[in-house]
């Protein structure tokens, strides 16, 4: 088992004829994912690595002959909101938004529409998600052979605000012989479709997942939300967290953004120090060094190191 994706998951790529989207499509197909169509307005009739291109999502759904599960949206920021609305209102329930630099107001509108329609958004400003050996949706892990090297199936659910660090951490879990159940690059923006706490119930219900690793950064209140969720729900899953960007707590770094749009210290509550305290108060183990993660996970799982 896993969360969100199975071997049967079908998805389209919106903006499929863009340079990055062409690569991403190739990578997903090579990994065995079912990419059933692509959309770029005005490019109907073309193919990208054998995937048919349509002008509208409705045409893609019609061609497929039934509901499509997901969409990877990789269109310029000014057009992203419309593309996501189009996906959701054509019955797509899982939308991965790769695009970065989308104004918060647009993201909030997408999320509110998704909530009303029973759909889920991952991202924006993310690399997507992967279930090792089953399905890769988005650029996560890169080309299929690289993704296979970094992601082996296993008991650890990974959630990360950084796309690159999703792979770095998963690779270390794979090297340590642990492996990953599902890894989700949740996105680096201030407002995202699915936060740690919002994905926790899915991991909680997944039999394969025995532990969670999160990668986090200063900025925002997402960690406080996770801490509250863990306390309120008496979770069975041990969580190991790594906090990057502690240097941003220095006084001269205040108000400066590093790494991702959402990574900025604006108040007392979103400093690294404050977040670490909150996570630890909820029983979440925050490791000091990135390379401690596999050993601490093993300890939590009762596996010999």
């Amino acid at each position: 088992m896993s969360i969100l994706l199975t071997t049967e998951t079908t998805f389209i790529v919106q903006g499929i004829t863009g340079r990055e989207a062409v690569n991403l499509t190739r990578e997903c197909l090579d990994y065995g994912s079912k990419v059933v169509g692509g959309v770029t307005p005005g490019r109907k009739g073309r193919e990208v690595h054998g995937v048919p291109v349509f002008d509208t999502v409705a045409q893609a759904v019609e061609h497929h002959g039934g509901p499509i599960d997901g969409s990877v949206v990789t269109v310029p920021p000014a057009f992203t909101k419309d593309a996501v609305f189009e996906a959701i209102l054509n019955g797509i329930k899982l939308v991965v938004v790769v695009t970065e630099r989308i104004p918060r107001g647009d993201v909030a509108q997408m999320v509110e529409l998704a909530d009303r329609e029973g759909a889920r958004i991952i991202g924006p400003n993310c690399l997507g998600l992967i279930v090792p050996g089953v399905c890769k949706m988005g650029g996560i892990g890169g080309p299929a052979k690289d993704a296979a090297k970094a992601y082996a199936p296993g008991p650890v659910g990974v959630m990360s605000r950084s796309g690159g660090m999703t792979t770095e951490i998963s690779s270390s879990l794979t090297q340590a012989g642990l492996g990953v159940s599902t890894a989700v690059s949740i996105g680096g923006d201030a407002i995202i479709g699915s936060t740690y706490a919002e994905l926790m119930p899915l991991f909680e219900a997944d039999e394969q997942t025995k532990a969670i690793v999160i990668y986090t950064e200063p900025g925002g209140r997402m960690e406080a939300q996770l801490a509250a969720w863990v306390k309120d729900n008496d979770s069975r899953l041990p969580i190991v967290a790594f906090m990057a960007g502690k240097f941003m707590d220095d006084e001269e770094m205040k108000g400066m953004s590093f790494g991702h749009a959402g990574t900025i210290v604006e108040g007392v509550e979103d400093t690294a120090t404050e977040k670490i305290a909150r996570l630890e108060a909820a029983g979440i183990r925050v490791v000091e060094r990135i390379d401690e993660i596999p050993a601490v996970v093993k300890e939590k799982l009762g596996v010999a190191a």
Partner: protein
Amino acid sequence: MRFFEFEARKIVELAGIPVTKYGFCTTPEEARAVAAEIGGPVVIKSQVLTGGRMKAGGVKFADTPEEAAEHAAAILQLEINGHMPRGVLVDPKAEVKQEYYAGVVWDGTAKRPLMLFSDMGGIDIEEVARTHPDHVGRGHVSNLFPIPDFEAKQAIAATGVSGSQLNRATPILARLARLFRENDMTLAEINPLAELTDGSFVALDAHMEMENEAVGRQKRLLRGELGIAEDDDREPYEHSKFEEAVAAIDAADHRGVIQGKDHGFTGNLGLVIGAGGGSLTLTDAVRNQGGKPANYSEIGGNPSVAKACGLAKEVLEKDGVEKIAVMMSIVSNTRVDIVARGVIKACLELGKDPGETIAIFRIPGAWEDEGEKILAKYGVEYCDRSVSMWEAAGRAVAKIQGAPA
């Protein structure tokens, strides 16, 4: 993007919220004229993008136009927290009966704008929320649907405000929420919102911030209504020579992205690192093992050899930099061999030995075998994914300090 008070007041005014008859002035003569037109006691306020104006002497009261001109002359020369004022705002001294607070912020957890209202205005709202929580009313608004007045009314009524005060404040808070959403603000605040002795409500001070990502689509407001110049980016600090040079290299070539920052960094170990999360992790790893970074940087999106070379050169040319550490989290898009070529080229062009200058090269991933070969030729230590980011950073620190990590 931050706004000066005189701009924030204009934004509030454009949304149909009452303001006093104020004037923005850049000379004492203008201040005198505005004060004369107002015809009574006035307040002169420094227009700076920093807090603590009152304490610093940036706000003064005047009874006559002559006094207004004198105060304006002094305030225009007064630096506050390192900022020179853009001008002064001359405002009638209002007869205030009661001060309120009205604000709208993002609630990232609820993913909706949050209206805030308090009958204890004029002070910091976070302070009020801590000490008098029952004096702060809150209410979320939809991102999709029109914002109805009643939601503002509910938030205000929650503080116990009733009567004509409730009816006067309601449209103001609702309009503030609408302008927040329509203008892509991240903060829209009126503090104080004043009830005058005649019972009317006016915004006496306003604070607005717009999301940087939305600046492009808010041109009508920014350039049209407010007349803000394209290059007036209002960063919290001046860009250094290093930061400008890296930005210029990045802009000259569309392939990949490089960023460099050195505000607050003064060390001797140059960092050529990436990507977003990797740079944060590596900067901490260097510092926590006793290293002193000379800068922060980010490489991503598969930059060209020229771009990687340009970044490495700028880092190497910073004062006090002895060595560079080239490190990233596992890459799938950026090519290891291209970054390797770039940083070696930078060393050679500056007449430095790559083997001596590059303390460590830790980038696992795409094209790593080719990268390793190139680096080996120049005697540069290469680390693959079996060496953690923490350990790689530690080795770089040890090389520069000549001590074990």
